[in-house]
């Protein structure tokens, strides 16, 4: 090997390492932007006393994209059970949008404490995620930190469940047909964790992991309701999936036994309507790490 060949080799190795290094350099975002709560130590029990609710309707402006047919020929079981399987990223009925995750991102409870300063008890019941017809049900859901998530397989084929969080531990587990439920939990708050099945790449779900129970998912009618909200002033965020997920924040004031309204709108030329007592915050752009 002559000298020039050696030089070329060294250059090639150095540039290769550079390319790898630059590609692997993405850092995780700060937890405070992903967890739906401020990064303060939570010690106090949630306030007792009368609470209120935050409810509203999620609208979709414009013509929603038509659901796309999914080709299930790779696994005949899927086609047999669910012959008309389509995408469910935009479910709109009478102009109302389903599967929007609405949660209290931050705020101050009457009395001066921040929401994140309270420690909310972890529910003992498990939240269900079923794989049925090669489709996740529900498509969007919320759990609290460390709350059990029970995953079942109702199909006569095997799936694998693969959440791809940024803050929590990633895992990937196969679940054969007839296998017992898989029980998991997430240790850190994160909005929202995509879940996919690597056997059936069209299967997608999203799990919001929260430090508090103040969240809800819009139903097929676009309606949602967050119950047991302590009186205070909050920033409520509506999150919608997409290639770049959309988040719409709104300032909401909740009174004891009161019912605050917060309607959100997505889609073309969407605006957010608010009740007279509510103020709308300007839209906030959230940089999506690793997405361009």
């Amino acid at each position, binding site marked *: 090997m*002559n000298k*020039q*060949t050696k030089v*070329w*080799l060294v*250059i*090639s190795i150095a*540039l*290769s390492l550079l*390319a*790898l290094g*630059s*590609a*692997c350099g993405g850092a995780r975002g700060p937890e405070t932007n992903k967890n739906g709560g401020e990064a303060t130590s939570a010690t106090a029990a949630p306030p007792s006393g009368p609470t209120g609710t935050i409810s509203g309707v999620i609208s979709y402006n414009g013509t929603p994209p038509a659901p*796309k*047919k*999914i*080709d299930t020929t*790779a*696994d*005949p*079981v899927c086609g047999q059970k669910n012959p008309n399987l*389509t*995408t469910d990223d935009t479910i709109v009925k009478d102009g109302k949008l389903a599967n929007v995750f609405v949660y209290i991102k931050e705020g101050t409870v009457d009395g001066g404490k921040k929401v994140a300063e309270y420690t909310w008890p972890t529910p003992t019941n498990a939240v269900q995620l079923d794989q049925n017809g090669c489709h996740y049900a529900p498509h969007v859901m919320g759990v609290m930190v460390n709350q059990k998530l029970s995953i079942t397989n109702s199909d006569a*084929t*095997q799936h*694998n469940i*693969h959440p791809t969080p940024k803050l929590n531990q*990633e895992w*990937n*587990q*196969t679940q*054969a047909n007839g296998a017992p439920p898989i029980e998991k939990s997430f240790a850190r708050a994160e909005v929202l964790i995509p879940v996919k099945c*690597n*056997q*059936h*790449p*069209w299967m997608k779900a999203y799990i919001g992991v929260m430090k508090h129970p103040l969240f809800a998912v819009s139903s097929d009618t676009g309606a949602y309701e967050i119950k047991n909200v302590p009186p205070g002033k909050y920033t409520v965020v509506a999150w919608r999936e997409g*290639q770049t997920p959309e988040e719409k924040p709104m300032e909401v004031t909740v009174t004891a036994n009161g019912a605050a309204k917060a309607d959100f709108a997505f889609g073309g030329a969407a605006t957010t309507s608010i009740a007279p007592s509510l103020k709308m915050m300007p839209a906030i752009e959230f940089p999506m790490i*690793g*997405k*361009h």
Partner: protein
Amino acid sequence: MNRGLNRYAILVACATFFLIIAGALVTSNDAGLATPDWPLSNGQVFPKMVGNLFWEHGHRMVATTVGMLTIVLAFYIYKKEKRDWVRKLGLFALLAVIAQGLLGGLTVKLMLPLAVSTAHATLAQLFFCTTVSLAVFTSRSWMDARPLQEEKGTLPLRYLCTAALVTIFLQLIIGATLRHSATWDQHLPAELILAHIGGAFAVTIALGSASVTTLRRYKDEKFLTRPAMVALSFLAVQLFLGVAAYMTRLASPGDPQPLNPMIAITVAHVACGALVFVSTIVLTLRTYRVFPATRHSVQSSSFSLSASKSSLKAEL
């Protein structure tokens, strides 16, 4: 020359090319984690190959076959080949295929970290390069080749070819990094796309220069012009496939699943990239074969075709 060994080396190289296609299909179908375990698939040697498990387990089966073929190749070379450096290359091929298998397992167990997946894809190309090189070194054309006169022109062809080879290898690494940095439903990182496009220009210039120089300077030397023509042809196809792959991949995040046009074109782009690489390797190796490394060695060399043959007989 052992014709059986050469044919067998060609077989292993072809099988390796097929393995690269199988691996590319895994990536394009987003099937890399269709099973979380390794080396078994869902705890089985032969699982039911439905859904994406077809691609992932199929890739493992092809890889196992290539691994076996490589073991036999290394043994075959050890038994039949007298040239020590070829025997060492056979051993390197064996070590490379073992490392490649371990990297494949590692990428599954670690859930496709970019660095490991990229290393797996890069080593695949290097292993392909090795098997093709073994096929070249055991071929009759290699044995029969006679050194030419000293190089025409001021810039030695072998340096041009080496530069093209290194450029292509770097481009392969960038391509592998780009490919593994986002799944079909995510947008590819813009900076890597730009780097890959820049790399395409660099490869076009480097390989174009090497090939055209070969064709102009040594138009009567088929030993050189053939791989130059082949490399140039693959490059043209590859540029076309690159544009097509970009278009289909750009639309992919809006699709409900990885669609066949995107899969077919991106896999073809990977495969053609491998062919550009190995055809350039063949050209480069041949330039080093026929052009002595230094002027002194040209002058002192007393090679001739007959001398080459007689020494070859003595070697074998």
